């Protein structure tokens, strides 16, 4: 160190420069921080994510879930071979659709309470127990889809039939007649075909090839029953 101190002033001196001579020039000032946290990039990302969903506003949470549901609705309306419904399954969409459909279908036209259309509970039970039965059936036949993925797909594919119910209720506001019935019949048939095609597009690939028809038939029956309930709905 003593040698280094002498060297800058004297260019004629032939003494060799020691190693790391310039180090002594560095002065450590007070405002460079020498402490901090060692963070692994992955961990910091997770911590960011956790704190953001805890601290985010309710509006953000709801919008995120609604956007996910809406994205899946789009996938049902324009069925392509995609994995979105299967990968990020959720049951919000099926619940919303089932409740909407059951509310619209309940107790259509009865002079006798026993003789009318289905009650709310009956529609609810048919939809959820029907979906569970179809899922169990496809798993027992050897399909490799998980339980909730299948429920998710079957629930989301009720969307076309819910739209048909809305249309039917609007059409029924006009006076009834054969044309009224034909319009409703046409709409229900188209939406039924749409539902079956959409759910088959998602579900058929998970079955072994020699049992595809066995797994698809209950889906057909399920949507047929719901379509029948929609078609026979008559308001009070």
């Amino acid at each position, binding site marked *: 160190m003593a040698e280094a101190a002498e060297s800058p002033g004297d260019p004629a001196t032939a003494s060799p420069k020691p190693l790391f001579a310039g180090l002594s020039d560095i002065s450590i000032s007070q405002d460079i921080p020498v402490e901090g946290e060692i963070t692994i990039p992955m961990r910091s990302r997770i911590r960011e994510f956790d704190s953001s969903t805890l601290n985010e506003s309710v509006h953000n949470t709801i919008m995120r879930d609604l956007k996910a549901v809406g994205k899946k609705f789009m996938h049902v309306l324009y069925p392509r071979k995609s994995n979105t419904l299967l990968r990020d399954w959720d049951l919000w969409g099926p619940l919303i659709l089932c409740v909407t459909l059951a509310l619209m279908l309940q107790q259509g*036209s009865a002079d006798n309470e026993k*003789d009318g*259309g289905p009650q709310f509970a009956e529609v609810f039970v048919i939809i959820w127990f029907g979906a569970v039965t179809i899922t169990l059936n496809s798993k027992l036949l*050897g399909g490799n889809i998980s339980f909730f993925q299948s429920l998710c797909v079957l629930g989301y594919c009720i969307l076309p039939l819910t739209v048909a119910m809305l249309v039917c209720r609007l059409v029924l506001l006009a006076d009834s007649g054969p044309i009224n019935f034909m319009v409703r019949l046409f709409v229900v048939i188209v939406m039924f075909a749409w539902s079956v095609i959409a759910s088959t597009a998602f579900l058929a690939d998970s079955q072994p090839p020699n049992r595809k028809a066995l797994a698809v038939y209950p889906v057909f*029956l399920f949507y047929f029953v719901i379509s*029948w309930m929609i078609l026979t709905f008559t308001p009070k």
Partner: protein
Amino acid sequence: MAAADELAFHEFEEATNLLAETPDAATTSRTDQLTPQGHVAVAVGLGAEDEVEENDKTSLLQEEKQQPGFWTFDYYQSFFDVDTSQVLDRIKGSLLPRPGHNFVRHHLRNRPDLYGPFWICATLAFVLAITGNLTLVLAQRKDPSIHYSPQFHKVTVAGITIYCYAWLVPLALWGFLRWRKGVRERMGPYTFLETVCVYGYSLFVFIPTVWLFGALALALSASGLVFTLWPVVREDTRLVAAVLLSAVVLLHALLAVGCKFYFFQPLPLEHIAPPPQAISLSPNTLLASTSPRTMVT
């Protein structure tokens, strides 16, 4: 050489009779058909070492194939081990019953499935309710005084009736046949699942002919049942056989007639039952006044 006899090709009927006598062997695997339990068929020409290996292998295989307990998923999966073509073949077999052909031996081949009975019953229940509703619609077209209603409770009634019939009657039949097993030694009764399977597939014929629900469908269905039960029952005394078969046919006919009257006759029965309730429950006098009018017509 006894082993060479076992190596010879067996006719199907013999094999199925062998199966009938040892039903436990059949339900586990098909490859055990020609090999009696525990024996090694391939003894000719092998050294002693290989024989020991074969013994170990067969005993190991039989251990592996033990049926899993009824609380596991795999147990139930074994009853859905059918392909589309097999189900269609079984349905065709039930549509065309023939006296020589035994449904259980020929079509089920001692591998009953639960897919057919379950979904055929579900389809039949919904088809009954829907067709009953359609009948009401058509009746209303002819006679506008009939009040149309969706009548959703019929779905519940249809479902309960069909499922109870398709499961409780085979249970009773199976129980009765097992009780009588002591009388006959030659051929054991069918297992419970085979009986359920036979009943389930025999109900299929009602689905396409549901409008008629007539004598033809009833005849086809009942004859299928009778031909299937005949080999099991013919060893018994004539009286028991006759009573059993006639009871089976009678129950089937009751189902057909009951469904016909409940679902397809919109006019007399329904409007007689509800009106007292309608009068007491409904506050609307207009509705109360229409029901006596329909009773009169």
